[in-house]
């Protein structure tokens, strides 16, 4: 339908080719303590963050979410899972999940975001539909800002992935921040 018309119209109307700007990444470089900045920003965006010894992960999570019964764990470091999922699981079935524990690939210090790829969550809906969310993240996988982060994730197999920063939130009623809009109502990042 419109394809040829649109492309032709662009061809006729676009300006002469402009070069793509050089991005001087050194302008963004800062000497900071990545772990500290990351922790501050996870808190800033409404998340909880804890540095935990890998063998204490289960205990810590139990302490934080004592009432969770239906738990999906797709992080190897955690054995609290009570509900098993696979690529074939109908995402609608996850509506009753209390807690999901997933693995994050990398964290971004400047904004407290964690990169999560489809491989780590098995079912795409999981980190959104669960009531509470825990992300286990190796602390040697922190980067200063998004430009660095994209260099790393640029090598992945692209299916679905996201930067997730804090729990679901909204300020649509009179600019009052409310945590827990449509997605997970709490987020805890466990640094190992």
């Amino acid at each position, binding site marked *: *339908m*419109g394809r040829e*018309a*649109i*492309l032709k*119209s*662009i*061809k*006729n*109307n*676009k*300006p002469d*080719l*402009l070069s*793509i700007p050089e*991005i001087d990444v050194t*302008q*963004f*470089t800062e000497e900071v303590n990545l772990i500290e900045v990351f922790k501050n920003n996870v808190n800033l*965006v409404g998340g909880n963050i804890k540095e935990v010894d890998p063998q204490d992960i289960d205990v810590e999570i139990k302490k934080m979410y004592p009432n969770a019964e239906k738990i999906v764990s797709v992080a190897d470091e955690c054995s609290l899972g009570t509900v098993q999922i696979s*690529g074939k699981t109908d*995402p*609608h079935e996850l*509506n009753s999940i209390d807690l999901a524990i997933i693995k994050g690939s990398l964290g*971004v210090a*400047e*904004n*407290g*975001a964690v990169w999560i790829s489809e491989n780590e969550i098995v079912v*795409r*809906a999981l980190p*959104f*539909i669960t009531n509470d969310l825990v992300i286990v993240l190796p602390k040697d996988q922190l980067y200063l*800002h*998004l*430009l660095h*982060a*994209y260099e790393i994730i*640029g090598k992945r197999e*692209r*299916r*679905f*992935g*996201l*930067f*997730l*920063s804090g*729990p679901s*939130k*909204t300020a*649509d*009623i*009179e*600019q*009052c921040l*409310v945590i827990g*809009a*449509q*997605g*997970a109502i709490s987020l805890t990042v466990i640094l190992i």
Partner: protein
Amino acid sequence: MSHAKQAEIFNKNEAKVNWHDKALWYVREKRDNSAHNVKGWEHLRDSASGIKAHVLSNLDEYLIQFEQNALQNGIKVHWASDAEEHNTIIHEILKDHKAEKVVKSKSMLTEECHLNPYLEEKGIEVIDTDLGERIVQLAKEPPSHIVLPAIHKTKEEVDVLFQEHLGTKASQGDPEYLTNAARKHLRGKFLNADVAITGVNFAVADTGGFVVCTNEGNADMGAHLAKVHIACMGIEKIIPKEGHLGIFLRLLARSATGQPITTYSSHFNKPTEGKEIHIVIVDNGRTEQLSREDFRASLHCIRCGACMNTCPIYRRSGGHSYDATIPGPIGSILSPGKDLKKHSSLPFASTLCGSCSNVCPVKINIHEQLYKWRQIIVKEQPQPVVKKSILKMTGTVFSKPGLYSFIGKSARFALKYAPKSLIYSKLNAWGKARDLPEVKNENFDDWYKKRSKNNG
């Protein structure tokens, strides 16, 4: 109705104007604080602006590249020249899947195309799932802001609205209670939806993927539960490489709300097995805007809304006063390109203060474009006779120093000696709330001549 008229009506309730102004100024301040925390902020803006300008100069090639990569990844790609084609394409997809229930996350493009009423007329339920959008949908109003759609509503108004539509109890506008009620209501809609429609924040040419950003998680809740995901994008959403997201995502949320990044920035590249992703690429006047050299840069816009939050006029007139899909400064340079007659008052709804251009993360010269639209509107649209003749006459007077000197003297004479009732008549908009300057006995010319004589 002109912007000035609408603004006058909005200003009848000064307390509400103050409330609206403060709410948005608060967002502007959050943006400032957030930007201050980024080393190299201005270089980020320069880079983003440069990338966007480059994209527009090679847009057809990038769209072709994007399409190729998306198709390879199993995404279906559609092209729509205008709103009607866009709506028809979506309806066809819905028919193919016998879809009756649609959940939609925020997309200014579908607002622009009036998709909701179109689908509703075909018997399809369309639920806006962004909380603010849902509020205005229930109130049967258009959004008044592109990022904060219900910013014009008080929490008490939302309370009443939810009592009526969601069966909530009176809560004096408790945001937590109301948000939670909306969460339960929308959860049901997500679980039962056949198709999810989302907008697109960025489409990446070299991967064929696209990114959708939300704070609530509503785009993801819709897209991952429904069988079919339709993503609608204007042609200008393209960026060359995935790595460029590192520039744009650093700017977007900070400019919009002051957050360091949107809560969910989801990257869609391939559909899940057994599901479908469709992309609808829409022109709807954009290629025409591309042809206008002076206004082309308006297509850089990444819809952050920062220009609205900073605009002293927007804050005091409300989004609805613009009577356009995109209100505020950016809307005032986009809308005249779509319908010059309807939107001819918008470029005048500005003091040309330039704050919008300064906050813009992609450095659109908004206030300069407003000035340029004014020149076009005066030429192409019929102007009020009085305004036109006064300004044309002024031009003549200023081009003739002798005449100017005579007129200046007479005007000062008139101002000084005419009865106040005449000066402050209804015709004099200046004098409604302001006094006129006190007129001195001599002007500067007179004083200077006298001084030269005395010194001479």
